[in-house]
């Protein structure tokens, strides 16, 4: 079972690095999804480890929330793109010192 959790950790870390290094907002978003998926994997693995379905339910909820989040996030990206003609997260940097 450990191998699943380790795989989850690796995927999570890769997602993290992706969020930090990619500049295209959509790709950043995908990396966030990757991190969520990695967590889901851990949940499902632990559900099997402990023999109850709570982990799977949680993974299910994570998916629902992720769906809602993607809808809003992509709408925001659209709006920003519409006004700024750019999907780069670095361009939206007016809110600073």
């Amino acid at each position, binding site marked *: 079972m450990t191998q699943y959790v380790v*795989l989850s950790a690796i995927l999570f870390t*890769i997602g993290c*690095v*992706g969020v930090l*290094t990619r500049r295209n907002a959509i790709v950043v978003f995908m990396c966030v999804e*990757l991190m969520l998926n990695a967590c889901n994997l851990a949940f499902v693995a632990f559900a099997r480890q402990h023999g109850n*379905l709570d982990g799977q339910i949680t993974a299910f909820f994570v998916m629902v929330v992720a769906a809602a989040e993607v809808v809003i996030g992509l709408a925001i*990206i659209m709006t920003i793109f519409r006004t700024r003609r750019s999907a780069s997260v670095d361009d939206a940097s007016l809110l600073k010192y």
Partner: protein
Amino acid sequence: MTFWLLAPIMVAAALGILFVRKAVHAALLLAVVMISLAFLYAVLDAPFLFAVQIIVYTGAILMLFLFVMMLIGVDASDSVVETIRGQRAMAVVLGLVFGAVLVVGLGQVTLGTVVGLDAANEGGNVPAIANILFSKYVFAFEATSALLITAALGAMVLAHRERLTPKATQADLAAQRLRDYADHGKHLGPLPSPGVYARHNAVDTPALLPDGTAAESSVSRVLAARGTVRSAPAMADDIDDVRRQLGGLDGHSDPATMPETSGKAGTPASTEEDEK
């Protein structure tokens, strides 16, 4: 076994996301990871999640990504130059340390024997999940419904664009067209259709004018900009070939079979090479 097969693929695809320059490729690599995950769910005795992962995640969410990408430009590819000083190096270092700490930490944990879901899934995984979802987690479930509605409304509000000018009516459009004709001599009628030939009709081939020249306005400007327009004169040889073949058969061949045979001759491929 399935795990050891899928895990390297997933890690490789995930790493690919970090390095590919086009967002579309990243989306495809993510799809690979997600579908692999779906299989892992199946292996982990979660058939319901297996289905949901494929249908909702890969089918809906990832498609939404692709739609948005289409709206804001598919070709837009990231520049590889890092603009924030030290960001990339720090990200990599921190990411490596974080991953190493997680893996090492998890390696230290002894999980004990696996209980397995056989007992829990008795009577089927989906009814078992439904049992918990509509009893123990019913409030959370209802809350997610509110969340989804809010998200839908929010997306609509965000995506809505106020119309700043009145919408052009049919009459306005007709008047504008006539004005353009009067001022610039712009063609009044519809644009000519692209070329239509016996063996090859396509939107990327311009129509031929009576004098044998290509009608530029009969193909989409997008295709012209991409440089994928076939030129009619270049096709002339094909026509001669066809005519020769027809002539070789003394005009008694079955017209229905001809395109197939000519297609098998691989001429389209050769034309593409001619272009280059």
